């Protein structure tokens, strides 16, 4: 490319950039009212972050992020408690075992969960009968 061509290309580049900027500015000026309104609302929401009293949005966002995690954590704690069998609900309720946890994880565990107390009672009764039988045998 000779010097004249290079100069011409530079002028072309300048023209292109100028026209691109003009077109872009026109498209910015031509934004519709709804879009401008949404930008305006977004700006005010952003500026609300500066005010110490207005933390609702942040709180909500924090909760949106942390609630699912908190749910998973709570489920994990319940699982660990069931797994380790502590703490028992009361003196009459026998500690759950690993097999209980497996049952709870089974597909049809929902009905089981609803009637958990009933099954615990049956379990307790069965153990009581076994104990009486054992004592009877001994005695």
């Amino acid at each position, binding site marked *: 490319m000779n010097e004249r061509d290079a100069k011409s290309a530079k002028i*072309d580049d300048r023209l292109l950039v100028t026209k*691109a*900027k003009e077109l*872009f500015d026109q498209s910015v000026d031509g934004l519709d009212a709804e879009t401008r309104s949404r*930008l305006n609302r*977004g*700006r005010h*929401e*952003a500026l609300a972050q500066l005010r110490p009293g207005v933390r609702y949005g942040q709180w909500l966002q924090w909760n949106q992020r942390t609630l699912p995690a908190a749910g998973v954590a709570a489920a994990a704690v319940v699982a660990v408690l069931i797994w380790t069998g502590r703490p028992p609900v009361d003196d009459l309720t026998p500690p759950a075992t690993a097999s209980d946890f497996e049952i709870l994880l089974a597909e049809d565990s929902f009905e089981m969960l609803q009637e958990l107390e009933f099954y615990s009672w049956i379990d307790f009764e069965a153990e009581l009968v076994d104990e009486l039988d054992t004592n009877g045998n001994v005695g």
Partner: protein
Amino acid sequence: MSACACEFAVSSIREHFTGTKELQREQELNRFLADVERRALRIAEISIRDRDEALDLVQEAMIKLVRNYADRSNNEWTPLFYRILQNGVRDWHRRQAVRNRVMVWFGRSTSDGRDYDPVAAAPDPAGRTPDETLQTEQAMESLQLAVAALPRRQKEAFMLRTFEGLNVAGTAVAMGCSEGSVKTHYSRAVHSLRDTLGEHWQ
């Protein structure tokens, strides 16, 4: 006046001035964001070709700027704001790429009808309309498509330099690269656009 009353008075005056300073900062940020928001929206929209998504990205950038950089000097806001926005655009493209891969894996369409064909969308030199507005819109559409088709770094450099009017140093901060890289990307972008758009566009 007791010492306690004096302390209370000083504390009240300090609080008053702190409050005034915070209010002033909020007003400055408001002016800055109001000035930059529409151009930022169009720049994001050209990058991702979706206005709703672009609006979300601009709002996220505004929130992050206010939360993290409100204390910085006003001169720093523009490059910082665009750096946040460009990061948002990049993350958006990454998410889209992952989404597309997942959709392909499930055998579903990934385009959402938003694919564009630069050849089909290229301006037709013979198809000029007498309507000036329409011509402008067509020219803008051609420009948008040509800019969108540029490699990412060239696109960023061109839009920040030309559309936002950032200088080389500011663009370097916004892009997170050296000033030399900005110059190279910008120069290549302009040459590429000149080749793509052709003489009829000028």
